[in-house]
């Protein structure tokens, strides 16, 4: 067993452990932290596949930004955990069925590729000067430029929609500060200097 394979198993085991803990742990903050661990380990696995751009982006976007906001919200929540656990037995069959279907599908993919495309199992070794980032960039901005731009526009629409939905009109009584006006304030507007004769020494 090579060193890389050893690393793969370490990361894979931690990943599966973390993923299972995400749904089994009782505390929601702990669940979010396990999710962070899971993302991190999958990034490490991608790194082993020589997809360093994707691996770093996964860490940057999901671990660095999405999960921070997630934790931010989860920590502020005041949830009573008992009612959340109530329907566990009731929904167990449905959940188990969905899980089973996913496992079977994954198995089918595995069997299919093993039977018909065995050569896919070998990692394509790239030459030393190969830059993953450059190749991805070139593909995205030439062959896939339209899907890429359309995805970007969809995301932009989503951002605007999210802002429009959460922006609510505050009541008229809410006080606002206008920084532009604050900056324009002169000393003369606020202070009046009064000249007074000094009191006589007694």
């Amino acid at each position, binding site marked *: 067993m090579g060193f890389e394979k050893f690393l793969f198993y370490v990361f894979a085991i931690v990943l599966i452990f973390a993923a299972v803990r995400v749904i089994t742990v009782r505390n929601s903050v702990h669940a979010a932290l396990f999710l962070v661990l899971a993302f991190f380990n999958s990034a490490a696995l991608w790194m082993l596949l020589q997809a*360093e751009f994707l691996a770093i982006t996964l860490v*940057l976007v999901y671990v*660095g930004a999405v999960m*921070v906001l997630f934790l*931010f919200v989860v*920590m502020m929540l005041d949830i009573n955990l008992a009612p959340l656990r109530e329907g566990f037995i009731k929904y167990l069959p449905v959940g188990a069925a969905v899980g089973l279907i996913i496992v079977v599908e994954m198995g089918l993919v595995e069997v299919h590729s093993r039977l018909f495309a065995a050569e896919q199992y070998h990692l394509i070794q790239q030459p030393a000067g190969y830059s993953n*980032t450059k190749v991805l960039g070139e593909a995205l901005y030439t062959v896939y430029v339209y899907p890429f731009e359309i995805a970007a526009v969809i995301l932009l629409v989503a951002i605007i929609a999210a802002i429009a939905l959460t922006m609510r009109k505050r009541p008229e009584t809410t006080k606002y500060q206008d*920084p532009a006006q604050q900056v324009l304030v002169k000393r003369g507007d606020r202070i009046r200097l009064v000249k007074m004769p000094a009191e006589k020494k007694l």
Partner: protein
Amino acid sequence: METILTLTLILAKIVAIVAPLMLAVAYLTYAERKIIGYMQVRIGPNRVGPKGWLQPIADAVKLMVKEIIIPSGANRFLFILAPILSIGPALAAWAVIPFGKGMVLANLDAGLLYLLALTSLGVYGVIISGWASNSKYAFLGAMRSAAQIVSYEIAMGFALVGVLMAAGSLNLQDIVLKQQGGLLHWFWLPLLPLFVVYFIAGVAETNRAPFDVAEGESEIVAGFHVEYSGMTFAVFFLAEYANMVLISALASTLFLGGWLSPFEGIPVLGEPGLIWFVLKMAIFLFLFLWFRATFPRYRYDQIMRLGWKVFIPVTLVWIGVLGLAILFRVGPWFA
């Protein structure tokens, strides 16, 4: 056998980076107290050793022998883990910083992206410490810090996009080499607004004054590390200063030509070398200390306004300008 040899070599390189870094951090605290002291017409520490030079060592020893107190309501594991999560990324980021031509631990092609990813991880230490302490002050500090870091990261990321466009590479070594040609060829000039935004966002990311609402002692005692003592506190402290050194190193690499000399073309003075890199870092570190001695703390809503309504639009506009500059091959930078 060969693997062991490479591993030892890498380990030796890591030690060669981290050991001077830790020493720099220790003496940065001394420099901070001295410089702020002189700015406030005081002398600063001058009792331990000649001129107080042994003060940081004494502080380190003191912090190491102090008791680590874990609050009774705290989550033990996360409480101890938080400072480690705080310092880990601050040290790991140094792997891609080039100290000279070829003098880099990992010559990563996606170096800039790696740095962005790692600097965004530092916030976990703060959030987790605030939550695990089970203390209101700590929690408030953590929430403030999380909101602040996430906001300024966007402006910081856009500033880095500018650097990436100007250099045409994510590799830090290539970015420095692209700035060859002396003071006026460095990226600070064509990217001036991005440079300013980057450094100020860097100050905000490290939770330093005037953006230190996360620990704002007049409002929330010490913020996220209020419950920490002894070595656990020391690690947070180390992480903050290591991050300051990191931001300074990055600003010098990305905008001030890294190890390149400002007088290129002149014999002897024009030679590139580590000394230039260290000098440039020292300038930024001095700025960090100067800010702390000069500016009062920002109000929380002002921080958010500055980040979202000033910095992000500025960077967006300048990225557009930069695109045009590159298209029309303006100046010596994009020829």
